[in-house]
């Protein structure tokens, strides 16, 4: 039996692919039979003519019979259904070609709808769904330390060492720092060489590249031998992107020395083109260096500090947790993930025991014992971006899904209208014996063709749209670490969406068009004059009402986002937004040491204050809306709390002029003075929330807070209370904040605040120039007005408002276009009826109102369905929309007014046309 399969397949393909040959051969074969038959008849004594006639008759008649035999033979072909499909496709394409306006409108609206879906899906795919592009990514796990205080993803370097040796053979361990901007310069810098530029550097432990199964595209990658002794491995590996940008992909880059934050490092290799590390962020790292180089590279990033000293090398301190941990647990060791977590836990407790204060502080020890190491799947890597964007992206996907549904309903009603026009063609074909199934299939193939054309257009739109979306979400628009261009998954998604779309808008019209009973009723109704229940029309009304309902939902969501953004923009951030310029510096990267800081600060402030138009200037450790923050655990004097509860506060270190410069009002006591020096009494200023929370009903002035429970002279005495502010975003309430004077700390002050008498934006270049004069070694990373920073902090909300607004508008436009079309169609069909009404005395206004009322009834039906939908939608969005209530009436009002206004406008034009009909002509119509 099996032997005949190749032959069958060959034949099936041959008669399909070489369709022309098969047809010709079929014709020849039958022709031959006919001739032989005729010749046979002649031998029996018939005349030539008579013989031909007989032969023909035997074939069942002239052309008709001959063709029937042929068709019967064709039906025996294996790929006959495919032939039918292609036939339908050709027929559909011809039909579309004949009505190019309809085709264009349909394909464009589908391309828009499908494209929006694919674009958002491809971003979701890249950020939320796709695993890291490494071998066997499902073997990767991320380690986390879970305690009653919360979940921490950061560990100390001594722990990494302990874990590696404990887990040897069972799992591979890799530690990574955050990606930090650092100054990178060429080694031989002369006066003409370009200024050092910021690059993004990440520190990795020795096993990382091996664990990620990476191969270099040039040179070598970092291995365990590159991470043995502290400060002893001045080597870096650079990314493909950095290699292109800075070295124009020159092979001589390997071996080149570069200076990173003042330390000469040798480039030993370039990673593979698709490698971006383990972090899924819009921007990846430019270079990777060994963790052992932390101190030399002056690396400083997010840090959990328990009695450690950040000014000493970090790799030796169990007290400093700063590294993310990724483990590879081979699948061959089934069920070992739990065992690996247990071993990790042992290592973690060993590491804790090495911390200073572990032996002496029982409470501290007790707390550490409650910490548990756990593993969670790490195939998709680390991603703050994902945490931030997953929910908004899903909201957007739901919204574009609705827009596409509206587009489908719209097309369905268009096709319904066309179906009435094609009734005659369909009726003829049905009466000629074409099966209904075959006709439905043909009509449906037409819809599918439209949908697939729309899908192709959508894919093009998606390529553009997904890139635009990422650029939109990223404020500084720099190079992207992740690739959002559509891949195979997006292609499949688009295909699936296209097919479902085609089913959605094509099935109903196809079934209705081939309903013979309907054809009869319509024929009857064409002659009838009065309206009454028209099932075709009622379907298209239902479709319009559905579109209105979805549009309302989208508009309500858009208004909610809009009102949410407005609410946020109105929030008083506490700082003076109008007159403040803020600059970001990095004195640590530029090579200043702690002892240089006081004089650096003095020099900078003096110079900036000399700039005309500058009223005041100050420096601080983090700065307002800078994106960086310091948080510490602390105890407040006289405030008792349960032992499990840990008090935490924001901390800021400032120069004496800070409060005046940024415009924070001092409510009690005083701000910092030049007299608050290192040797003096340790002082602090707290914000209102701090005072209210921990000194409720007491006078906070003179009270103290401390990093531990000792309120002696090392604790900080509160000398003032200052107004609350929003420190880095406008969401939620102001947190508690404690300020300390710069002179009493050794913190680096990374922010400069300048208060101006006029528009701060005008002073940007002057301040920059002043800076360059005094401190050429210290470049300004960023300088903006505070107002810019505050608006940038709402970038995501702005994007959501903009996109939901666009989607709502597109849905409403489509729905109203549909309404317009349906009402116009109805007016045309009812011309005779309208003529009679007018002849009987109905005036223009009455006719206009009659048409308009029917249209508005459909809109009201849509609203009735849409309002509950909108309520549910808004409730589901509560976690995304914090600034506005889910039942925010103005949002609903706005959406309803917009929808009714535009819908009325859309229905008004055909209604006016109806009222202007000339009764005499109208009566003669149809």
């Amino acid at each position, binding site marked *: 039996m099996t032997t*005949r399969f190749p032959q069958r397949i060959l034949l099936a393909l041959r008669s399909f692919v070489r369709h022309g040959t098969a047809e010709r051969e079929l014709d020849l074969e039958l022709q031959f039979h006919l001739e032989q038959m005729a010749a046979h008849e002649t031998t029996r004594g018939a005349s030539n003519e008579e013989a031909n006639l007989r032969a023909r008759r035997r074939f069942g008649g002239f052309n008709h019979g001959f063709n029937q035999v042929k068709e019967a033979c064709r039906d025996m072909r294996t790929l006959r259904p495919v032939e039918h499909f292609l036939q339908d496709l050709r027929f559909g394409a011809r039909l579309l070609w004949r009505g190019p306006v309809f085709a264009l409108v349909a394909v464009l609206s589908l391309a828009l709808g499908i494209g929006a879906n694919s674009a958002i899906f491809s971003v979701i795919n890249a950020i939320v769904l796709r695993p890291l592009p490494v071998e066997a990514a499902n073997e990767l796990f991320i380690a986390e330390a879970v305690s009653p205080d919360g979940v921490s993803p950061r560990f100390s370097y001594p722990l990494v060492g302990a874990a590696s040796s404990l887990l040897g053979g069972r799992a591979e361990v890799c530690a990574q720092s955050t990606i930090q901007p650092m100054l990178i310069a060429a080694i031989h810098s002369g006066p003409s060489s370009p200024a050092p530029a910021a690059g993004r550097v990440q520190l990795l432990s020795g096993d990382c590249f091996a664990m990620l199964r990476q191969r270099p595209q040039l040179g070598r990658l970092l291995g365990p031998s590159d991470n043995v002794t502290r400060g002893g491995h001045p080597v870096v590996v650079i990314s493909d992107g950095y290699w292109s940008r800075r070295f124009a992909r020159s092979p001589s880059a390997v071996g080149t020395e570069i200076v990173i934050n003042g330390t000469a490092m040798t480039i030993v290799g370039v990673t593979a083109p698709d490698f971006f590390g383990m972090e899924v962020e819009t921007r990846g790292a430019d270079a990777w260096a060994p963790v052992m180089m932390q101190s030399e590279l002056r690396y400083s990033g997010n840090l959990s500090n328990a009695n450690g000293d950040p000014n000493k090398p970090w790799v030796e301190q169990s007290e400093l947790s700063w590294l993310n941990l990724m483990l590879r647990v081979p699948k061959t060791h089934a069920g070992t993930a739990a065992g690996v977590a247990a071993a990790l836990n042992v290592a973690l407790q060993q590491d804790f025991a090495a911390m200073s204060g572990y032996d002496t502080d029982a409470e501290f020890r007790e707390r550490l014992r409650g910490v548990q190491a756990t593993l969670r799947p790490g195939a998709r890597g680390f991603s703050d971006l994902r945490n931030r964007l997953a929910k908004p992206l899903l909201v957007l996907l739901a919204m574009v899904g609705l827009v596409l549904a509206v587009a489908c309903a719209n097309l369905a009603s268009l096709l319904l209208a066309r179906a009435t026009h094609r009734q005659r063609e369909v009726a003829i074909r049905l009466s000629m014996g074409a099966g209904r199934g075959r006709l439905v299939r043909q009509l449906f193939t037409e819809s599918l063709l439209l949908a697939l054309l729309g899908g192709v257009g959508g894919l093009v739109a998606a390529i553009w749209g997904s890139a635009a979306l990422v650029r939109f979400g990223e404020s500084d628009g720099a190079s992207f670490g992740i690739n959002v261009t559509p891949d195979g998954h997006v292609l499949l998604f688009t295909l699936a969406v296209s097919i479902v779309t085609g089913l959605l808008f094509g099935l109903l019209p196809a079934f209705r068009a081939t309903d013979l009973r309907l054809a009869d009723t319509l024929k009857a109704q064409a002659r009838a004059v009065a309206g009454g229940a028209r099932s075709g029309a009622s379907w298209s009304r239902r479709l319009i009402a559905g579109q209105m309902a979805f549009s309302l939902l989208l508009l309500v969501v858009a208004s909610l986002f809009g009102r949410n953004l407005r609410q946020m923009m109105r929030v008083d951030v506490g700082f003076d937004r109008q007159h403040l310029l803020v600059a970001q510096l990095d004195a640590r990267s530029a090579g200043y040491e702690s002892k240089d800081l006081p004089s650096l600060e003095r020099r900078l402030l003096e110079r900036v204050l000399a700039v005309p138009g500058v009223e005041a200037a100050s420096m601080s450790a983090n700065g307002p809306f800078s994106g960086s923050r310091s948080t510490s655990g602390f105890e407040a004097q006289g405030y008792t709390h349960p032992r499990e509860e840990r008090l935490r506060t924001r901390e800021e270190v400032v120069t004496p002029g800070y409060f005046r410069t940024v415009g924070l009002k001092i409510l009690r006591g005083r701000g910092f003075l030049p007299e608050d020096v290192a040797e003096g009494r340790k002082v602090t200023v707290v914000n209102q929330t701090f005072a209210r929370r921990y000194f409720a009903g007491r006078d906070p002035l003179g009270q103290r807070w401390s990093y531990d429970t000792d309120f002696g002279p090392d604790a900080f005495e509160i000398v003032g209370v200052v107004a609350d502010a929003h420190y880095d975003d406008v969401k939620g309430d102001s947190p508690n904040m404690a300020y300390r004077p710069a002179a009493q700390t050794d913190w680096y002050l990374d922010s400069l605040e300048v208060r101006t008498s006029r528009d701060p934006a005008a002073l940007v270049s002057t301040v920059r120039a002043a800076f360059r004069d005094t401190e050429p070694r210290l470049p300004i990373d960023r300088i903006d007005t505070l107002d810019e920073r505050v608006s940038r902090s709402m970038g995501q909300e702005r994007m959501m408002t903009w996109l939901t607004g666009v989607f709502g508008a597109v849905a409403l436009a489509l729905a109203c276009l549909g309404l317009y079309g349906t009402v116009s169609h109805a007016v045309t069909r009812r011309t005779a009826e309208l003529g009679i009404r007018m002849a009987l005395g109905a005036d223009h206004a009455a006719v206009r109102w009659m048409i308009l009322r029917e249209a508005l009834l459909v809109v009201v039906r849509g609203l009735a369905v849409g309002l509950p939908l909108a309520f549910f939608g808004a409730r589901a969005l509560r976690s995304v929309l914090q600034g506005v209530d889910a039942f925010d009436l103005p949002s609903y009002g706005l959406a309803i007014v917009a929808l009714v206004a535009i819908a009325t406008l859309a229905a008004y034009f055909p209604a006016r046309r109806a009222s202007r009909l000339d009764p005499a002509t109208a009566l003669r119509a149809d």
Partner: protein
Amino acid sequence: MPKPTDLLQGTLDLLILKTLALEPMHGWGIVLRIQQTSGEILQVQPGSLYPALHRLEHQGWIGAKWADTDAGRRAKYYSLTRAGRTQLEKETEQWLRLSGAVTSLLGVV
């Protein structure tokens, strides 16, 4: 001319396969052969013959090749494949069983 007997469903396939078992033949040849060997009792109409031939070909039981007739005309010659030979045996056996059953039934009555 006697009215041609209607062929039982599936019998035509058997006749075609049997006819082709002797030698490759074109459609007209099959018609003539069946007519002659059945003593003019069985007449095959082109309307049933050709669809059947095409079906058998697509099922892989017969193959087809274009060749010249004795008179020098191009014609499509069908021949039995190996799978077709097996099928012929199967169908012959079935037919004999069936016709045997019918004959014995008629004999009893």
